[in-house]
């Protein structure tokens, strides 16, 4: 299909478009299907983008940090902490390392044990926050050295739980894109059915057009234009409703976690504008294919 043919197909020709009666249930079906699918596509897109952001954030935030836990008797805790900080200070790839204060450790525990926890009476391990440099640290090498010099030290480089979380977020993003793809395929299938029904219902009109010398391309154009414009306008309405729904979602917050971040950010708000264009393209291809096949059958 050449560019010229596509331009001809999309050019408005009110008189030529009138050869096909304007009414029929296929008109409503196409509008409804493209609207509903565009509405769903907005949410699938929002889910996919939010998952992507989450995966990126988790990957970058957790990848650049590690935690060292010192499990030692109370009388050795300070000494082992000092020794660990000394080791970290000499380790390549460690940008900074600092022991958390008692208040910071209490703040970390308070969501589980409440604010009145008597930390000084409990054998709480000392935590050391490590910020990695570029390139990152060699976790295996550091563990070996700490094992020799600070026997109570346990290094947690977050790999254990960072990777499943990032994998889950990436899977969710993939799911979003697969949903968009499925929405596109379902739209194409529904519009193909509607176009076939319309072509079959107008078989007598097609016969008359052929008798007066119409080429298949002329007949197909009349149907393709109509379905493409209907799909476009249906999708515009669906996108507007979907965007309204996304706008009404609660704003992103730490308390709400992932669910409240399910929206668009920055230039992402422009992406749904592509949905009507893609919907029209899908309708164009689906109707053109259906019309070509049906006209061949009717010849």
């Amino acid at each position, binding site marked *: 299909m050449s560019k010229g043919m596509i331009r001809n197909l999309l050019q408005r020709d009110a*008189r*030529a478009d*009138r*050869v096909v*009666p*304007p009414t029929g249930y296929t008109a409503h079906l196409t509008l409804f299907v493209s609207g509903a699918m565009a509405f769903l596509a907005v949410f699938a897109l929002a889910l996919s983008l939010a998952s992507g952001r989450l995966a990126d954030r988790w990957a970058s935030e957790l990848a650049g940090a590690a935690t060292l836990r010192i499990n030692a008797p109370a009388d050795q805790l300070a000494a082992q902490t000092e020794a660990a900080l000394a080791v970290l200070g000499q380790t390549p790839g460690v940008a900074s390392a600092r022991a958390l204060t008692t208040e910071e450790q209490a703040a970390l525990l308070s969501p589980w044990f409440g604010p009145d926890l008597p930390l000084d009476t409990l054998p709480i391990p000392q935590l050391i926050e490590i910020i990695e440099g570029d390139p990152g640290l060699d976790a295996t090498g550091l563990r070996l050295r700490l094992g020799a010099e600070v026997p109570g030290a346990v290094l947690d480089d977050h790999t254990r739980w960072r990777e499943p979380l990032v994998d889950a977020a990436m899977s969710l993003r993939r799911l979003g894109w697969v949903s968009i793809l499925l929405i596109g395929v379902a739209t194409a299938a529904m519009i193909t059915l509607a176009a076939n029904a319309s072509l079959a219902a107008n078989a007598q*009109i097609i*016969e*008359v*057009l*052929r*008798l*007066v*010398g*119409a*080429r*298949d*391309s*002329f007949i197909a154009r009349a149907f393709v234009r109509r379905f493409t414009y209907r799909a476009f306008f249906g999708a515009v309405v669906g996108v507007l409703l979907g965007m309204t729904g996304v706008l009404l979602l609660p704003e992103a917050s730490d308390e709400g976690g992932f669910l409240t971040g399910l929206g668009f950010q920055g230039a992402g708000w422009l992406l749904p504008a592509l949905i009507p264009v893609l919907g029209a393209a899908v309708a164009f291809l689906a109707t053109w294919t259906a019309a070509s096949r049906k*006209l061949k059958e009717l*010849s």
Partner: protein
Amino acid sequence: MIELENVSYTYGGGELLSNVSLQLQPGSFHFLTGPSGAGKTTLLKLCYGALLPTSGRLNAFEQDVAGLDRDHMALLRRRIGVVHQDCRFLDHMTVSENVALPLMVSGQAETAKREDLSELLSWVGLGARLDAHPPELSGGERQRAALARAVILSPDVVLADEPTGNVDWEMSQRLLRLLVELNKMGKTVLIATHDLSLIRAAKSQVQARVLRISQRQVQLAGADL
């Protein structure tokens, strides 16, 4: 111009036409007669490519019709104007839009002038019915509108299938005069009709060749008509 050579046409196991040979020369005028069901419409459909011969050769404008693809068949039909017995209009469009349909499908609608269209409709006596819809027309008006649509592209050949089948004597004479007038402009005309009085009436107006379909064959009719 249109030439059938030993053309046979079979449908549903039965042979409707058998070894028909026929030539439509440029500027000639033909009547095709025979009883209902004899195969007049089938022969006309073969002439404009709506049906293809089961055997034999069918040439139109020096092209083998059986070998034409759908696009070339469309171009062929623009050179043959057809008046169908049931007129075949698009009821949701006005009379003028229906008559202009061949211009539209051939991409000439932009250059066509509304005055020319009005003139053509006035020629067939429908100048005042431009904006009417086909269901609002009488039988005679429909036939005349169909004739206007058939000739709007100035085709080389005009085929008319029982054009006077649903109209009174006066209207049938009017339609005949229009077809004779077209023939005098140089168009080849073939009228399929079972109305012998129409053929007799035409004798005084035009040099017509009368063909009769009988027993699946086409023969030149005798002087008894």
